[in-house]
Each structure stands twice: as C-alpha cells, then as structure tokens.
C-alpha cells in the first residue's frame, strides 16, 4: 500500500513537473517577443534590488550576496553589492569602473571583443531584449508563473564561459525577474530581482566612480 502511494506521488510529481513548464508554440513566441521588445523600448531607467546565489555542487549552501542595480538607457549599468561587502561595477562606454570597498580601479574593455560581448549581454538581459542576438540559439518556455527564454552560445569561445543563460519574465509586465547563468561545469549563478522601479529619474552622477 505504502509503495503504491509513493509510486503514485512519484508519477504525479513527474506529470506535474512536466505540466509546469512547456515549450512555446510559434504564435506564443511571436507575441511574447513582441511584448518584451515593446516594454524594453518604453524602459528608460530601471532601479531594482537583487539577491545573487552562487551554486557550487560541493557546497552545503549557495553563496549569497545582495545589492542594487541601476540601468539608464541606452547603456549605463551599475551593479552595487552591499551585503556582505561593498563592491560596485559601472559599465560605461568602453570601461568598467570598479569600487572594491573603497579601492577604485578602471578596466579598459575597448580592445576585448569578448568583454564587449559580455557587457552587451548584461545590458540586453537587464532589458530582456536579446532575442535577435546572432551569437545565441534561443528557445522559449512558458508556465503558469513565468515565461522563460534560454540562450545557448553558438560561439565556442563564449561557450567555454557560459553553457547557457536563462531569463525568467513576469507574465504580466514582461520584465526580467530572474537571470541564471549556467557554467560548462553545471554550477550556476542565479540573480533574483525585487522592488523594481521603472522610468524614475536617475542622475548620471550615479554612474561615476
């Protein structure tokens, strides 16, 4: 009897898990993309909190850090970690401006094609608008809670850094609420956004070190 119940639960959970997430069909894909792109066009600034979880298979707990992110169109981004340490990176033109607990430094990414690509990825993933990126093969999924886009790099150089890249979107406003980067080793980083404020005024001074 007990076995039957466990088998039933097991079967049910498999069915349920499958039911949770399915691939989008062509028309769902088209309308989803259109919504994300039109929302991204309207988005001039974003302010949001985030929590980052670094998952390494051999650890008991994910490594958790958190902070704030600010984005200003077309391509200013600031990631600021406030817990458990102070660390910020500003993506500005061809430079990374870093403030590591008071130690400031600058990294020129002007010559690095790969870094430019990664930077572009970050900006586009914040906005959600990266479906036309020729460097990735994109597949789309839906569930009752979210829409999901999974990006797999075509470029072998990028593939040595990232196995895949997942964006989870709210159903209603088509905003990205979670980013997941999976490494070739299967370890991953998950960033969950909260308290998002759209199109408030953000001073340019926020993006200087």
């Amino acid at each position, binding site marked *: 009897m007990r076995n039957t119940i466990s088998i039933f639960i097991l079967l049910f959970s498999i069915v349920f898990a499958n039911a949770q997430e399915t691939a989008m069909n062509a028309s769902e894909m088209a309308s989803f993309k259109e919504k994300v792109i039109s929302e991204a066009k309207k988005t001039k600034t974003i302010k949001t909190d985030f929590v980052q979880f670094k998952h*390494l298979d051999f650890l008991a707990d994910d490594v958790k850090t958190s902070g704030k992110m600010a984005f200003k169109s077309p391509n200013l981004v600031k990631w600021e970690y406030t817990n458990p340490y102070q660390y910020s990176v500003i993506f500005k033109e061809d430079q990374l401006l870093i403030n590591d607990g008071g130690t400031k430094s600058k990294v020129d990414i002007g010559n690095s094609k790969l870094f430019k690509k990664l930077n572009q990825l970050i900006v586009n993933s914040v906005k959600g608008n990266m479906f036309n990126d020729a460097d990735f093969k994109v597949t789309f999924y839906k569930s009752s809670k979210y829409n999901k886009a999974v990006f797999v790099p075509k470029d072998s150089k990028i593939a040595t850094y990232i196995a895949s890249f997942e964006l989870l979107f709210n159903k209603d406003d088509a905003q990205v609420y979670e980013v997941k980067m999976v*490494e070739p080793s299967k370890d991953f980083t998950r960033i969950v956004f909260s308290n998002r404020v759209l199109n408030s005024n953000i001073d340019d001074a926020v993006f200087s070190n």
Partner: protein
Amino acid sequence: MMRFLAISLLASLFLVSCSLKTTEGLRQVSTEITEIENPYFSNPEIDYVYKAKIEIYGKNLGGIVIIKKIGKKNHRVVFTTEFGSKLFDFEFEGDTFTKNYMLPDLDKKFITNILRDDFKLLINENMMVSEAFNSENYSVFKTEMGNRFVFYFFGNAENQLQKIIKTSKTKEKVEIDFTSTEENIAETIAIKHNNIKLKIDLEKFKKE
C-alpha cells in the same frame, strides 16, 4: 689589525645575510609535539567563504574565495568574480593537485603554480615538526615542505595559529597572517609574497 677587522666585517655581513630572519629573537627549545595542525579549514561541515582582494604589481582584482574540506585529505578551492563566474577551481588531495578549471586568460603555468602553492600552504592541515622555538609571544614550529621550510607561529596567549611563513634556507618567501575572534575560524587572512609584488587579502563573509 685592519685585515682582521675587514674579515670579521665581511664574515658578519655574510652571516647576517645567510641567517633566516624568521627565527631571529627566538630560542630553540626541545618539544614533544611531533605534529601540528592548521585548524582553519579543517571542518568538513563548514563552507569557508571569503571576499578576496588581490594586488598584483599595482593592479587590483577582486573576487570570492570558497574553500571546503571535501574528504579526509581533500580540499576544494574555488575563486569566482563578484558576479559568480569561476576564475579557477582547484582540488588538493594530500600532495596531489588537480586543476578542475582555470579561466583560459589566466591559464599560464607560472600563475597556476603560484596560486597552487599559496592555497596549498593556506589549507595544509597537518605537518610534521622538525624543530621548535619559543619567544614571549609565540610558540613556533618548523616543518618541511619539499625543498622549503614552513614555520607555524601559535600565539602563546590564546594558542591560536597566527602566522605561517614559508622560507628557503636563507629567505622568507611567503607569509600568511591570520586574525581570529571565533575559535578555529580565520576572520581575515593576508598572504604576502616577498619576491614578487603579490598580496592576497581575504575577509570572511559576515553572518546574516
């Protein structure tokens, strides 16, 4: 007379440059302790997570260092950026070293060797004692690692490991300083090199 002075001067200079600074002011003592333990990464239940700041030839680099004891003699050491992407992933099993991953841009033999040696020195748990020294503040144990010597400084007051110094016969090569408020947990770790301009500072993640 002049000649004698010149010779003694030269001799004393030679002796000074030859003698190891590490044991200066310490007196050698006999000891019954045959083995010492570095307790800071010895608990397999704990994920040891540190914010890292590296200063190399005037350049700064940040990241997160994660250390875990994953077997009786095994340690995993992973270094990621603040964003979580892995820069390297090392595994130590006794004297066996495995490089699970290293960012292609960093993957140079001389960088790998320095990092391997530094983290090996940091996590090495048990060492056989060859000589012992004493001072007002420290009990010091000399051990051997390959063709190098490693000195472990334990504070007399709290009997905590405070310093590790790796030396050749005549020169100090690497020094690791620990501060600790909780038993067997290193709050801050500073790894300094004497022959290259490399400094690694680690600060333990605060509890939530």
